[in-house]
């Protein structure tokens, strides 16, 4: 049985009260409930406070460069599709530096789960604007206010992600369910997680979010794309949480002939076949 003892990592170096703690707890809970053992798991992260998360949980870890967790996660998943691959980023990592990788990973529908800790501000570099900062948000790099933000949910629907959800770091039970759903989903799962930054974002605080978030009910149909796009526009007084869009589409990995025989990592080479290749160049 997998228990919390399997997922005790290093002591986190986050600020006390950081929303990252809630995300870490929710992820660990999801992994335990899905009975995934740490050695079956690959956590790939970028750079930013979110990028440190893998070290505070347990598993195989590839802590990559800023903006780049998605490509190595894809490479590892193709090499060994038996790995449960979870990529972890902040909003700067995912929607800024790594924007192009996100776009194409969604389109190709790689079977990975992408957790984006979205605190609408840069934490590690101490308080600059982020791609998701609210319009007019004043920071040291945007003294006259931030430009309009990216809408990650609408972007993901348009971009072809097949599981798109929004969670809140202040609601661990609900978030753990979303992460479970993302991991179980076959295809690219984007989970955008509202995460208060207690040090640098004094606007979008725990109470600011709590006053606004609500959970999508049974009556909401995440399979309806126009409805999902409409729901994705909701931001401000009311912010929906839950699975906003979900669809089934073949994954990238399912469509690769070489993977039908099992993971690449356990396949052997036949030199005799190479000999035949040479004949083509006579």
């Amino acid at each position: 049985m997998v228990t919390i003892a399997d997922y005790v990592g290093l002591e986190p170096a986050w600020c006390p009260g950081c929303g990252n703690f809630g995300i870490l707890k929710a992820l660990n809970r999801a992994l335990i409930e899905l009975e995934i053992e740490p050695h079956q798991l690959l956590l790939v992260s970028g750079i930013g406070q979110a990028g440190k998360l893998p070290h505070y949980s347990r598993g195989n870890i590839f802590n990559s460069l800023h903006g780049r967790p998605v490509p190595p996660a894809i490479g590892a998943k193709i090499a060994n599709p038996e790995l449960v691959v979870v990529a972890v980023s902040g909003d700067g990592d995912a929607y800024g530096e790594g924007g192009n990788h996100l776009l194409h990973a969604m389109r190709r529908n790689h079977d990975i789960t992408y957790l984006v800790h979205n605190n609408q501000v840069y934490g590690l570099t101490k308080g600059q604007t982020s791609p998701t900062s609210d319009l007019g948000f004043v920071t040291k790099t945007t003294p006259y206010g931030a430009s309009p933000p990216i809408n990650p949910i609408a972007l993901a629907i348009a971009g072809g992600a097949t599981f798109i959800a929004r969670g809140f770091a202040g609601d661990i039970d609900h978030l753990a369910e979303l992460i479970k759903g993302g991991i179980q989903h076959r295809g690219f799962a984007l989970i955008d997680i509202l995460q208060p930054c207690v040090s640098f974002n004094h606007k979008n605080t725990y109470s600011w979010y709590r006053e606004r978030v609500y959970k999508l009910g049974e009556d909401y149909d995440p399979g309806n794309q126009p409805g999902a796009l409409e729901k994705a526009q909701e931001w401000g007084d009311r912010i929906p949480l839950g699975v906003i869009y979900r669809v089934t589409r073949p994954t990238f990995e399912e469509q690769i002939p070489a993977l039908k025989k099992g993971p690449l990592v356990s396949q052997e080479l036949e030199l005799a076949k190479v000999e035949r290749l040479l004949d083509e160049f006579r």
Partner: protein
Amino acid sequence: MTIDMNFVVAGEAGQGVQLAGFLLAKVLARGGYHVFADQDYESRVRGGHNFFRVRVKDSRVGAIAEPVDVLIAFNKESVSLHKNVVTGVIIFNGKKIKDTGGDSLFIVPLERLAGDKLMSNTVALGVALGLVEYDFEIVAKVLREHFGTGDVSQNNIKAARAGYEYSRREYKGKISRLLSPSSQEERLLLTGNEAISLGAIAVGCKFMAAYPMTPVSSIMEYLAAKSKDFDLVMVHAEDEIAAINMGIGAAYAGVRAMTATSGSGFCLMVEGLGLAGITETPLVVVEGQRPGPAVGLPTRTEQGDLQFVLHAHHGEFPRAVLAPATVEDAFWITVKAFNLAEKYQLPVIILTDQHLASSYTTVDRIDLSKVTIDRGLLFSGGEAEQLEYKRHRITETGISPRAFPGQSKALVMTDADEHDEAGHLIEDAGMRTAQVQKRLRKLFSLKKEIDPPKLYGPKKAETTLIGWGSTFGAIHEAVDILRKEGASVNMLHLNELWPFQAEAVADVIGRSHHSYVIENNATGQLAKLIRAETGKEVSGRILKYDGRPFSPAYIAEAVRKECC
């Protein structure tokens, strides 16, 4: 009489220059001749001026030659651009041309003989081979193999025969040099890119991610085409940054991985190169040089990236840089690159260029039994030990045994941040120093695996010509030309560039009066490397940076001017 003939097929993009040139090379190779063929093309899909040079010899050939025995010109521009170097005949497709070469200009109604405009290039092939009275059966066989068994094949054979017979009838005796295919030796006709692709497959590469870019796209395409048969995956990534990072992820997960790009794509990959460095992930990167900076001359050749690849990325970490000298070498260098990458857990750069990438050479059939796969030190601990597995364990050699994620209970952890032995990020000064030293220590044993530079000619000579990478064939032949004239010349050629073999290079330079680097760049990047690593200054630099490859005659003439 020795055979050394030069055919040039020229025309605009879209006229079938490439195919006619390739088929000509193939037919000549099949007849037992040695062939070297290079391609000169512009960055456009239609129009412009392209040509394909095919040099045929009855002994080994590794370079182009300038005098043209047979020029096949598909348009007027091709005649005016090449006629100055034509010493033989011109086969011109058309009706009339003002600017004639007198008796040597053969106006051939290619389109009429073809019966179909699309096949005029095949007719031209027949005309050229008819001129030298080649065995038509070989032509037919190659066309059949190339086009398959259907109508296209039959029509092309018919078109070639029409050209061949026309030529035999109209131009009999007009050319004194004839080619009579003899031996049925099993040589292969390969480009540098094909050799790299075959090397990668033969040594067990299972994953490639790349973004199309001249001159390496054909490596991607070849691996993609063979991916089903060889259980490998080629991902056409969204950009070069993604490509190198996907490769790193695949290699981390336990498969042999590569990427390929040109110099300007490599600019984007530089960030990832250092990631492979600090995470000690084996990765093979093919860097196909073309003239820069920025877009430069995208379809042409240069050796301008040597210093770039040696130093690319911030910080310090070990890497290997190998620059194949010939098509055959490209195969074996690729095999070695994958083995070194895994053995020393670092990025290995195969530094090639457009000239090698797209030039065809005949090579003896590759002996695959000589291919070895060395995956380096792999972790095979017991259950208890696996819980303590440390990916970056500090060892005497600097090499830590690798485990692959998901293949055992061992957790494989690594980080782009400086990390401890387990792979967790750290700030500690002592561990930082220890990890830097551990990584750099790998260079000591890596250096012992680097082959010494190749010496050609007398051990001691007055003049030494020093080159690296794809210039091997041209310098080699220049040495032959100069020695025939009585000059005391030898050649030192480097194909395994880093870690640098300083002692061997210094030794040869020390024995000659004059030493000249010959490089396809403007600043003499190898000369700088030699000075930095040996403290020795070469006597001179023979440089070419017009985007075109060296010919042996060009080098010989430059050497005569410099020293003799």
